[in-house]
């Protein structure tokens, strides 16, 4: 358990302007409280969220990254999220083989109506990340999740 009580995870959220950003707004209007660790980067559409941005976020010492946009079929630009979905799917494969900790990178669909879901997602991610402790991107040090992986692997 590498986490210390002092540790406050840094979470970067890349969200689309029309669904998830508004979902987060709704969470605000409904005063749904959640941890203050998330930093939202607003982009027009998940279609705009390039994998280089995610890498950059990790390089900038993000402990977890969230990518979120409109549910399939609801994209403000009709199909941006479909293109994104494919990209992410493959990108995760690449991260997996590189040994990047996939528990540090999250993908969700959150609509403008899902303020509640935004609250839950952020709370969960923050708690989870806090437990896992700071993310040493590219350090071969074994992490908590790694141990977990090992257990699953043997079982």
């Amino acid at each position, binding site marked *: 358990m590498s986490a210390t009580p002092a540790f406050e995870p840094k979470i970067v959220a890349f969200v689309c302007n029309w669904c998830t950003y508004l979902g987060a707004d709704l969470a605000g209007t409904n005063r749904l409280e959640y941890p203050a660790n998330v930093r939202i980067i607003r982009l*027009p559409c998940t279609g705009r969220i390039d994998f280089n941005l995610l890498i950059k976020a990790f390089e900038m010492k993000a402990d977890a990254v969230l990518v979120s946009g409109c549910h399939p079929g609801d994209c403000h630009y009709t199909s941006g999220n479909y293109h994104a979905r494919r990209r992410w799917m493959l990108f995760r494969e690449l991260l997996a083989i590189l040994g990047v900790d996939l528990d540090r990178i999250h993908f969700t669909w959150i609509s403008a109506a899902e303020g509640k879901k935004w609250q839950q997602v952020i709370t969960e991610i923050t708690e989870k990340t806090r437990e896992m402790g700071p993310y040493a991107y590219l350090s071969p040090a074994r992490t908590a999740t790694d141990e977990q992986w090992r257990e699953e692997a043997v079982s």
Partner: protein
Amino acid sequence: MSRIGVFTCWCGENIARTVDVERVAEAVAQIPGVRCSVHNKYMCSDPGQTMIREKIASERLDVLVVASCSPHMHLKTFRKAAGQAGINPYLVEMSNIREHCSWVHHDKEKATEKAIQLIRLSVEKVRRNRALEPIKVPVTKRALVIGGGVAGIQAALDIADTGYEVVMVEREPSIGGKMAGLSETFPTLDCSQCILTPRMVEVGQHSRIRLYSYSEVESVDGYVGNFKVTIRQKARYVDIDKCTGCGECWNCCPLKKQLSEFDYGMGTRRAIYVPFPQAVPARPVIDKNACTKLKKGGCGLCEKKCLAKAINFKDQDKLVEELVGAIIVATGYQLYRVGQDQGKRKLSGYGEYGYGRYKDVIDSLQFERLVSASGPTGGVIKRPSDGVVPNTVVFISCVGSRDNAKGLSYCSKICCMYTAKHTMLYKHKVHEGQAHVFYMDIRAGGKNYDEFVRRAIEQDGARYHRGRVSKITEENGKLIVRGADTLAAVPLTIEADMVVLAAAMRPSDGAEELAQELGVGYDEFGFFSESHPKLRPVETNAAGVFICGACHAPKDIPEAVAQASAVAGKVQVMFGHDEMTREPEIASINEQTCAACFACVRTCPYHAIEKTEIRSPKGILVKRTARVNSGLCMGCGTCVSVCPSKSADLEGFSEQQIYSMIESLV
């Protein structure tokens, strides 16, 4: 080095309660480049905005960050304010420290810290904002209406009457669409043609409407305000300008036995024909698949008879171009084909109903012709097989509709009403006749609609059975209809003289191809998709393309007409200005570095990126590159992600802006 001004808002207590606004202002003031960091109770209020304008002047600020609520709330407000103070509106960014901070956190310490960071994000972004000018797109004040049914007619007339030109394209030889073939309309039972034909004539004679009948849209290029439309005028073999519509030709044509499309095969026409007497234009067309002259070079009687010399057997398809600013799709519907072939793979027909095998099993539009005073039987209900007046008629609803197994899951909405109408019309013409209806649910929502159905049952004695029909067979001249009455919980067999199937409504043939040509979305059934089901019901996701009538979903005449007028309204708003301004936050391509892999072209949801070639003055190919059509780009930025060399970039969310935001998170 830009001079940045940061204006932090209290939003009364909304922000100040959990965010120490003073501390935020002080902290932010330390960020390099920030020349002025102040706060105010209500930034969006007049005093607040005045403060912003004053500071801009006094501190000679050139870019601004307003830290208050969601940009969806007030970005426009503050950009306007800045604009008034002489700053380019696109040099203003907002930090959302209310919805995303003060309202969702209680720990003042953390909230304040976060607020500072959020503002730092925006400061880093705004540094790299570029002054942008709204894109001005000239508007061609002419509208194209595709489809000359009741919806198209309504839209065309509304637009033309406000003084704009309209181009109408109709696939059939005459406008009028399905409504022209209906007998009487629910719930008032007023004669369909009596309502429609005057409107058709108006279209035909309107000085500002150019009608292309017997024509189809071949291709559409350009973008909102500036479409170039190519129209194929199908060879008609009759010069409609010379033709006087006297009728000599079709009266002399020896080929009398051609099945009439207008009568859905219930009646016949000649090889040269006007689909129906009130046709607009009232000019004939030659059926090249029937005409002996065109097939074998014989006959040619009509040509001899025509004093106006309007017949031209050498006629060929012509392509004409029209420039328009808006496109209205009103391509309407067709009936689901009850027989096997649906022209669409995933649908299957009702073998069990024997449509096509039993002459007296007909669909609802065929029945309309049978009861129509102008129909093949002059309005006398005679069954097709032997012309006998049927004493028992079974009407079956939901044929194709709400039948997942046959491929259509949706309700066609109007069948309940017209079936009730059919039973009445039948009863009014055959007094001793008995109408039976097999239905699943009666959906009669609408002004005087349910009353209408009750009338059919209570006054005109239609017998309604709640259940589907399983099979229809023919035995010695009778149609044996095997259904069920689930309310009585009995199987029910009725010996009928005629069966009328309320077949489902489907989009017209070619709807999907047209949608693709226009870059408009459509659902799994081929119905055009509106851009927002509640707030933008007649717009599509392709700017400048609108939809009305049954091409959008099954609907009845009043709805189609209402939608058509709504579209007209939208178009009038658009044509109210000489040019349209569009948000300048769109994509652009660095043509020097573009490798012409055209990944962007493939992924752009709006087909807004084109393949182009850069040529030297001598015309030698220098290189190929992608180029953004600023008239079409909606600024989603998908192209940026797929561009391997990042030659594509997006104003307002440029690579530089985003990266510096991320970097500011250290």
